[in-house]
């Protein structure tokens, strides 16, 4: 048993729902108890879908147990077919139905439905939502896709976008446009928007563009083996990654078409003088493996940040994320326990967090600005406006999104200049761009003489402590940490005013 309050991922059958809801003409019959329909509202509320997810639940109750839950399943399956007339059906069990062992796949196969029935094995007590999506899509492709002659013109499939995916809608559009500019036709985009008959003709593409390894990698590998379709390895998030992605596409397709990059503003925005203050800002990055890997590269190479720590919650990506952490010389954090993430952030005292909805809340609590880079996300991260993460427009969007929570350069300069000013003191709280940071609490003043505050084993002398308070609160954590590190390195047990400024000189860049 594991004590949990907040989960980064839902159970695997929610992943299967994300595939089914993304597709058209497919129906999911889920053997599940009354109540599991709660997952519908993720799609109708968070993603604001205007139709019910194509899922029929058997909704068995206590009185059904021990009698005929298998019959209940067959009835639900038949009624779902009669009502919705799908091109194909996927069937599976939720966590509770897994325990009663009715075997939905076997039951559905004996019914003789006139459409393909695809059974899903999703181990609810070992795996999670992303696995569920990846496995479901793989099974659908495995059952439906047929070997075919390749299209006359160079074409590709786009693989991985699902319902409830972070910015999948706009990423697909951005990448489709990019491929179009390169003269490459998109054969099928799947699962999002595809029907089972679209899946059947995936084999005629020349290669695959894998946008989200979390939800499409198994299918991409299967297509590589079965249809001789190579797939792209670069995820085009960030300017550098997008350029690499274009090179990879050129190599796969032989395209020599020029790309119009006049819409790319991120590179100049990043070079302009107002961005100088971003240099060396310490960021902590957490989310799903793919978004974390791409964000780390953008943070270091395109924004000039210092990556202070990184990690992911989906253990399927532990290996590449560990390798990345090694490259960045930081400790990797592979965990699905948000309390552990919170502890890591507290210890590192970054100036900014790039994370999920949970990290946004952690940032709020600790007074650290945060931008959302990965699922799980809430309703505000399914925006009405066009906001891809991928491609050149994605790079523009990312620049704006990440910079927004930070205090602007000029503003920060003014705050330094007027730090004793009545409007810029502690009690006034952060500027409006500080987001939702709480007003800093009044630090309790110990009545004991001389050694005033105490942190760890190093004692802050009263004068040093008072000087520290003059530093604007949004850099104070960093100053305190640097000074303490400096003191520890020098073997000092007390921090005086001199120690504070020596440390400042030591860390000056």
């Amino acid at each position, binding site marked *: *048993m*594991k*004590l*949990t*309050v*907040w*989960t980064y*991922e*839902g*159970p695997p*059958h*929610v992943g299967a729902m994300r595939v089914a809801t993304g597709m058209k003409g497919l129906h999911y019959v889920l053997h599940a*108890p*009354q*109540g*599991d*329909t*709660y*997952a*519908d*509202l*993720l799609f*109708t*509320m968070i993603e*604001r*879908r*205007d*139709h*019910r997810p194509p899922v*029929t*639940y*058997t*909704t*068995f*109750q*206590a009185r*059904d*147990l021990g009698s005929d839950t298998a019959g209940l399943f067959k009835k*639900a399956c038949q*009624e779902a077919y009669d*009502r919705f007339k799908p091109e194909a059906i996927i069937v599976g069990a*939720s*966590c*509770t139905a897994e*325990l*009663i062992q009715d075997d939905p796949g076997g039951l559905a196969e004996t019914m003789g439905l006139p459409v393909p029935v695809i059974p899903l094995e999703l*181990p*609810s*007590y*070992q795996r*999670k939502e992303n696995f569920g999506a990846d496995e479901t899509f793989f099974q659908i492709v495995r059952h439906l896709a047929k070997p075919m002659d390749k299209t006359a013109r160079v074409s590709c499939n786009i693989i991985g976008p699902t319902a409830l995916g972070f910015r999948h809608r706009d990423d697909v559009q951005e990448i489709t446009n990019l491929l179009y500019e390169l003269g490459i036709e998109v054969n099928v985009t799947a699962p999002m928007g595809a029907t089972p008959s679209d899946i059947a003709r995936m084999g005629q593409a020349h290669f695959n563009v894998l946008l989200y390894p979390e939800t499409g990698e198994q299918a991409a590998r299967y297509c590589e083996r079965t249809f001789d379709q190579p797939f792209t390895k670069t995820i085009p998030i960030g300017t550098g990654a997008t350029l690499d992605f274009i090179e990879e596409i050129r190599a796969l397709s032989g395209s020599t078409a020029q790309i119009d990059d006049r819409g790319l503003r991120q590179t100049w925005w990043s070079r302009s003088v107002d961005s100088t203050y971003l240099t060396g800002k310490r960021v902590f990055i957490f989310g799903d493996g793919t978004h974390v890997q791409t964000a780390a590269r953008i943070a270091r190479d395109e924004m000039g940040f210092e990556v202070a720590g990184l990690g992911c919650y989906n253990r399927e990506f532990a290996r590449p994320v560990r390798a990345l952490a090694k490259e960045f010389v930081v400790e990797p954090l592979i965990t699905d326990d948000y309390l552990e993430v919170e502890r890591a952030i507290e210890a590192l005292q970054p100036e900014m967090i790039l994370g999920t909805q949970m990290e946004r*809340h952690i940032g*709020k*609590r600790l007074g650290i600005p945060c931008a959302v880079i990965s699922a799980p996300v*809430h309703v505000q991260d399914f925006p009405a406006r066009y906001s891809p993460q991928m491609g050149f427009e994605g790079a523009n969007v990312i620049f704006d999104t990440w910079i927004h929570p930070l205090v602007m350069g000029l503003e920060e300069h003014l705050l330094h200049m007027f730090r004793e000013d009545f409007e810029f003191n502690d009690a006034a709280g952060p500027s409006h761009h500080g987001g939702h940071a709480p007003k800093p609490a009044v630090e309790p003043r110990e009545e004991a003489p001389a050694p005033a505050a105490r942190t760890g084993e190093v004692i802050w002398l009263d004068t040093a402590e008072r000087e520290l308070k003059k530093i604007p609160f949004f850099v104070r954590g960093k100053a305190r940490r640097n000074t303490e590190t400096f003191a520890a390195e020098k073997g000092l047990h007390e921090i005086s005013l001199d120690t504070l400024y020596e440390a400042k000189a030591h860390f000056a860049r």
Partner: protein
Amino acid sequence: MTDQFAPPPALGCRSAPVLKQRGQREVFCGLTGIIWLHRKIQDAFFLVVGSRTCAHLLQSAAGVMIFAEPRFGTAILEESDLAGLNDAHAELDRTVNELLTRRPDIRQLFLVGSCPSEVIKLDLSRAAERLTQQFAPKVRVLEYSGSGIETTFTQGEDACLAAMVPVLPASDARELLVVGALPDVVEDQMLSLLEDLGVGPVRVLPARSIDAEMGIGENTVFALSQPFLGETHAALERRGARHLAAPFPFGDEGTTAWLAAIAAEFGTSDETFAQVTDAPRRRARAAIAQASEPLRDKSIFFFPDSQLEVPLARFLTRECGMSALEVGMPYIHDGIHGPDLDLLPQGPQISEGQDVDLQLDRCRAARPDLTVCGLGLANPLEAEGLSTKWAIELVFTPVHFYEQAGDLAALFARPLRRKSILSTSAEVAAE
């Protein structure tokens, strides 16, 4: 005292034929009750023993609340827990130990059963007994089921309160017990009205803390403030307490009838009753009249959700001028819902249980002006051009008693007002 109301209908819905259907049900399970119960019982922690699905449900339902260091969590069953049951008990003890060490302020711990824990027949009641002994006297450990296979949405609160009844101390005092978790502001209004009526002493279940709990016995009378408390009703009667049946305190009529039933039991004079209730009744009627303007002569269709449907249909038809087309309830309990059914004029289809696709067909055919349903159905129905009011809000928002009567009408009026604003501006834009 009822002179300001339309007389009760000659034929209410109590004996109306009930459409009972079974099939796919689009409802929450009882675990969701934790979301509001933990706010009410301030020294309690709710530990669900279940799967990742249960944790995900609580997270989806709790929204942002999950970050205010909530007093609930899930012990997620893992593969190894399913292998052998003895192991599961040891694991549970370890988890509870870890939890109580981290939260020393907790005085009551509820082990909440889920579908997975019930299907593997994990004996949580024995675990609760064992843990109670281990942590006595500081912490009391109780057990109830919030599983989807046994409970629907608000029935989770029922199961929780019913689990508390057997451990309440015995008492011979003649006391009134009001049962059902109400928002604090509503509870305070209720207590002050009852005090003015000379009714007392009054206790509430659930109490805000374990120290404020009351005794139960032959002389206890109880009133329900919520219509979903069938099990608790039965548990209280088993301990000798007597139920005061009444319509539920929604709107002017419901609140007045509810208070009247208690006043009659405690011998309050008609003058005192009028003196206490006249002013708030006037306020409530004025507020309802104003807020319910868009509701007049509109039709309404209820999907089953919380068991609040029948009393709300009674309020909306009798006090806001609406007509009900179908009133769906997850369960109907004659002893509890009867008084409201008596007041609901015959006409609407009363239904119990659900086959959601068939019910959607009926709803589409009826084209109601307003549909009350869950969040899984609301946006899809809006996209089909039907106005909806999502039902969950009715459980979280203060809606009971006089001062909230206007707000209650406004909750239903707002979607209709919004629709007319947006369609007017769309017409202007099109011109």
